[in-house]
């Protein structure tokens, strides 16, 4: 395969990765890392460098639309980024001290279970919760466009969500991938934030979490321009399309896509753990 063909194929694969990443709030890495490593036989370190680029591209590309259209909640995002960025530093610190294989196994099993949980739509009772004092003080409650109107929501369980976000940051520092899944789950399952707001706010946040480790990967020589170029351009185009599709798609379908993608991510984690690739 010559460089021109390689660039075109990786660009096409990255387009799909960006599309799914923008729809699920997970970033492009979930699709991209196995695609590059298994199909294109790219060394895992170059694949992780390219994945980092793809996460920032998906996040910034789709967030532009999500923020302007009122889906992402920037206050929830900013507040929780305190936990994810500090968590990412803790993860980088722990990386040389604990077994990442054990963590990948626990995380993989947890994702498979979450894939099962997050398929379920929320009950009407859970859609109309009373305001929570802490969330109100932190000005987290908001609204977003739904079915031609505007739907309000009240955020719950802030301390639990904040702790899970710290865990999400630690995981991204330790394993390089997967933090988007924990972000969406923390907002959706623990904080009871509507699904579209959870995925788009996760999408808004993952760029900053990834930027926190971008310097490290760049200086280690993981980011190759010839590989990252088609990844970035493809993912960006995919994320632009994804952000348009999300607006038109029913939450029910987004939940199904999300649960399939995190189930695949869970299996991928277990595969990496048992083949010793992490």
């Amino acid at each position, binding site marked *: 395969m010559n460089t021109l063909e390689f660039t075109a194929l990786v660009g096409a694969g990255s387009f799909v990765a960006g599309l799914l990443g923008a729809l699920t709030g997970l970033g492009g890495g979930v699709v991209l890392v196995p695609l590059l490593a298994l199909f294109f036989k790219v060394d895992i370190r170059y694949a992780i460098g390219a994945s980092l680029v793809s996460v920032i591209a998906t996040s910034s590309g789709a967030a532009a*639309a999500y923020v302007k259209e009122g889906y992402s909640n920037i206050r929830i995002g900013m507040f929780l*980024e305190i936990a994810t960025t500090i968590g990412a530093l803790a993860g980088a610190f722990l990386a040389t001290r604990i077994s990442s294989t054990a963590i990948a196994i626990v995380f993989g099993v947890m994702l498979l279970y979450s894939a099962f949980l997050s398929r379920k739509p929320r009950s009407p009772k859970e859609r109309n919760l009373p305001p929570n004092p802490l969330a109100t003080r932190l000005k987290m409650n908001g609204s977003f466009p739904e079915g031609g109107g505007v739907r309000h929501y009240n955020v719950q369980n802030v301390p639990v969500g904040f702790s899970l976000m710290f865990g999400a940051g630690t995981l991204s520092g330790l394993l390089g991938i997967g933090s988007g899944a924990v972000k969406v789950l923390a907002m959706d399952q623990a904080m009871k934030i509507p699904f579209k707001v959870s995925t788009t706010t996760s999408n808004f946040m993952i760029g900053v979490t990834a930027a926190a480790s971008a*310097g490290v990967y760049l200086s280690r020589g993981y980011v190759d321009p010839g590989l990252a170029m088609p990844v970035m351009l493809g993912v960006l185009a995919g994320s632009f399309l994804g952000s348009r599709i999300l607006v038109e798609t029913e939450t029910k379908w987004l939940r199904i896509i999300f649960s399939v993608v995190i189930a695949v991510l869970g299996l991928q984690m277990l595969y990496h753990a048992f083949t010793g690739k992490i």
Partner: protein
Amino acid sequence: MSALMSALKNWDDQRTETFIGNLLRAGVLLAASVVGIGAIIFLRKYGGLPSDYRTFHGEPEQFRTIRGIFHEALTLRGRGIIQLGLVLLMATPVARVVFSIWAFAAEKDRMYVAFTLIVLAVLLYSFLGSGI
């Protein structure tokens, strides 16, 4: 000047959202244009050669530091220009955090100015610690 003052007086959440959305879009489009220009130069030169990423060699020094990347980009080397575009992409979320401080200040939301400053401090700490 007075127009700016009155604009700041009426600054609300929606303006912040529009502003941050536009900033992110400008950042990615600028980064993508730079990467695109680098891609043309790179592919014209290396397009027909085989590509192989099976073994990890690590990038050479000039693609691992900001100074090296600028040097390569200014001498119009394709890969140097691509790498410069990638650095612009990585800087976009950081710029978003910096300008959020300004936007929350315009909304007179001190609590969120403080939260955003904490995030920025952690980001800068991790960037400076990486030695790029």
